[in-house]
C-alpha cells in the first residue's frame, strides 16, 4: 500500500510472507531438497481502516488462519511488514504482550478455547491477570463485559460445559473485549452455529463495532455472511490474495474466476434454481508443489496458454479492486 494511506489505516500489511520449514537442514541437504520451506502466506498487502470490517475468505489450507496468527505475532514472519497504528510489529515477549492488548483474538472453536475447569468469571478475568491489571475491580469488570455481550450476570458462576454454542461464543467475545482492543481478529466466528444463533452473534459484533469503534478482521469460509458483515474483503488461494477490494464490488462483479467459482458454489436456497453443474472442480494443489504460472490454472475453467507459464500480477479492475488474473472476468478478453 502507498505510504500516503498511513493516516487512515489502523492495520497495514505489506508484502507479507510466512513460511514453514518442511525438513531440517541436514535432511534437506541429504535429499537435495532445493528449499525445505512452504510458503503459507505470500505477497499479501492490505489495510484495515479503524471501525471497519475486513473479511478474508478462502478454502481450508489457503493460509487464512496463518495470516491471522501472523498479525497477532503467533507465527514468525519471513518478509514484509505489519504495522498497527503506525507502529511496526515488535519482537520480544513483553512488547508482543502490549501488541496483543490492542489486537485481540477470537478463536475458532469457542468451547475448545475455554478451559473446562474455569468458571466464566475466571475466563473473562484471565486477560486482566495475564496483563497484570489486578488492581482493577475484577468482579465489576466481569459484570460490565457480560452485560456488553448480552449475558446475565449470574453466568459468571457457570462452567463452559453449561453453555450453549451461542453463549460460549459470547464468552469468547467478552474475553476478546476485556482489554479494550481496537482490532479483533475473529477466526470463523460463527462456524458450527445454527442460523438463528449465527445472526445473534453477528448482530452483537456489529453493535459492539458501532458502540466501541472496533475494527474486525474476520476469517471465514462462509460467503453468505461475508456480504453482510464486511466493508472490504480478500479472497485467498494458496497463500496469495487473488482478489481484493470493497465487498459490495466483489459480490457485484467478481473479477477472478476463483472468486466467481466460490460464489457459484454457494448453495441457493431456492429449489427452482438448482445448479446443474459444478463450476469449481478438483481440489487445491499441494503448497509443496505450486503450479507454474497462475497457481489457479489447474482448476480454472478459463485457463489459457499464458496462464500456464506467466505469473499474473495484481491488476486493478476498478478503484481499490484488484485481481491476480491475466484475463479478469468482465474485462475485454
Amino acid at each position, binding site marked *: 500500500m502507498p505510504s500516503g494511506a498511513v493516516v487512515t489505516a489502523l492495520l497495514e500489511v505489506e508484502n507479507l510472507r510466512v513460511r514453514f520449514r518442511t525438513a531440517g537442514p541436514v535432511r534437506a541437504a541429504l535429499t537435495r531438497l532445493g528449499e525445505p520451506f512452504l510458503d503459507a502466506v505470500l505477497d499479501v498487502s492490505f489495510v484495515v481502516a479503524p471501525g471497519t470490517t475486513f473479511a478474508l475468505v478462502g478454502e481450508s489450507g489457503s493460509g487464512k488462519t496463518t495470516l491471522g496468527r501472523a498479525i497477532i505475532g503467533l507465527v514468525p514472519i519471513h518478509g514484509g511488514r505489519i504495522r498497527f497504528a503506525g507502529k511496526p510489529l515488535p519482537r520480544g515477549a513483553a512488547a508482543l504482550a502490549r501488541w496483543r492488548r490492542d489486537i485481540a483474538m477470537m478463536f475458532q472453536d469457542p468451547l475448545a478455547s475455554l478451559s473446562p475447569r474455569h468458571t466464566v468469571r475466571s475466563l473473562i478475568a484471565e486477560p486482566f491477570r495475564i496483563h497484570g491489571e489486578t488492581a482493577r475491580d475484577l468482579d465489576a469488570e466481569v459484570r460490565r463485559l457480560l452485560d456488553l455481550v448480552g449475558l446475565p450476570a449470574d453466568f459468571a458462576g457457570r462452567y463452559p460445559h453449561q453453555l450453549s454454542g451461542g453463549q460460549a461464543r459470547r464468552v469468547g467475545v467478552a474475553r476478546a473485549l476485556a482489554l479494550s482492543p481496537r482490532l479483533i481478529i475473529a477466526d470463523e466466528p460463527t462456524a458450527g452455529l445454527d*442460523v438463528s444463533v449465527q445472526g445473534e452473534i453477528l448482530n452483537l459484533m456489529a453493535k459492539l463495532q458501532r458502540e466501541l469503534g472496533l475494527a474486525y478482521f474476520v476469517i471465514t469460509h462462509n*460467503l453468505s455472511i461475508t456480504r453482510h458483515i464486511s466493508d472490504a474483503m480478500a479472497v485467498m488461494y494458496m497463500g496469495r490474495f487473488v482478489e481484493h477490494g470493497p465487498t459490495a464490488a466483489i459480490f457485484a462483479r467478481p473479477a477472478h474466476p476463483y472468486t466467481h467459482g466460490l460464489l457459484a458454489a454457494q448453495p441457493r436456497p431456492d*429449489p427452482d434454481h438448482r445448479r446443474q453443474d459444478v463450476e469449481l472442480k478438483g*481440489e487445491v494443489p499441494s503448497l509443496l508443489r505450486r503450479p507454474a504460472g497462475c497457481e489457479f490454472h489447474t482448476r480454472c475453467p478459463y485457463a489459457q496458454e499464458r496462464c500456464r507459464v506467466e505469473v499474473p500480477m495484481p491488476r486493478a479492475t476498478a478503484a481499490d479492486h484488484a485481481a491476480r488474473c491475466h484475463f479478469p472476468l468482465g474485462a475485454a478478453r
Partner: protein
Amino acid sequence: MAAILSIDKLSVDFLTPRGTVSALRQVSLDVPRGSIVGIVGESGSGKSTLIAAATRLLSENAVIRGGTVEFDGEDMLNLPPDRLRALRGRRIAMVFQDPMTALNPVLSIGRQMIDIQYRDRLDRAGKRARAAEMLRRVGIPDAGARLDRFPHEFSGGMRQRIAIAMALLGNPDLLIADEPTTALDVTMEAQIIHLLREQRREFEGSILFISHNLGLIAELCDHVVILYAGEVVERGTVHDIFHRPSHPYTEALLVCDPARLSQASRALPTIGGEVPDLIRLPSGCIFAPRCPKAFARCRSAAPHTHVVTPEHTASCHLVPS
C-alpha cells in the same frame, strides 16, 4: 408405491440423571422409494435421535415410548439382532458427518472396502475390483492404486467420497446421509451434493438427508421435514417448504438464512429465545414461546397436524383446516 422407510408417531425418551428428556414426540415421516427426503432441524431438534431410532442404534438410556418404524414393510423396532445386522450396511447404509473419524486410520482404504463386502461370495480380487470400480464412480482418479493408501493420505473431500463409495457398495435401498458436508469447504460441498444427486440416479435408491443448511436441502431434496425440539412442525414437497411455508418456525428459519437476503444488511434476522428444555416441556404449542404470531390458544393447546394439501402438513393453529 409404498415408502421404503415409514415412521409413524414415534416417541423416544432419554432417561438422564436430570430427568426424562422427551427427545422425539409423535414423529411421523415417509421416505418414498427413489426420492430424497431432507430433515431440517437446528441443534437439539432430534435429528440424530430420529436416525438412530430408525436404524435401531439408540443409546442404552433411550426408551421408545410408542410408534412404529417400518423399513420395506419390516417392523424395525421388533427385528431380532441378526435380521437387523443383515439390513444395516447393506440395505440401509449411512454416511456420517465427519469423514476424518468414519474411516479406520490404521487400515488401507482398500482393506476397509474389501472387509465391508464380507457377506459377498466373491474372491478377494473380485472384491478389490468392485471397490476400485466404486471409487471411480465417486470421482476418485487412479482408483486402483489409491486402494493401497491410508485415510490420512486423502483430503477431507476425498475421504467423504470414499465414505460414500463404501456406503454404496452394498447397493442400498436407503442411504442415510447425516450432515455429510458440514466439515467440507463450499467447493467440495457442491461436488459432494452433485455426486449424491448423480448416484441417486444410478443406484435408484432413496436418500434421507439430514442438514441444517437450507441451501443444500433446496438443491438436493424432493421432500422436506422440518423438525423442531423433537416434533415435526411442517412437512411438504421442497417447493411447498421454500415457496409456501405454513409454519411460523419454517418461515423464521427461511428468513434467518443470510443467503436469502437480497440486500446486504448489518442487522441480520434472528429467532428470539431459546429451544425449550425437553425435560420440562411448555404446555401448548412447542414453538409458542418463540413464535412472533403466538396468541392465547397457542400457550394452552397443542395444535393438531393440519393438512394444507395431501403432501403438505403443518402443526399450527393458524393453518386453516
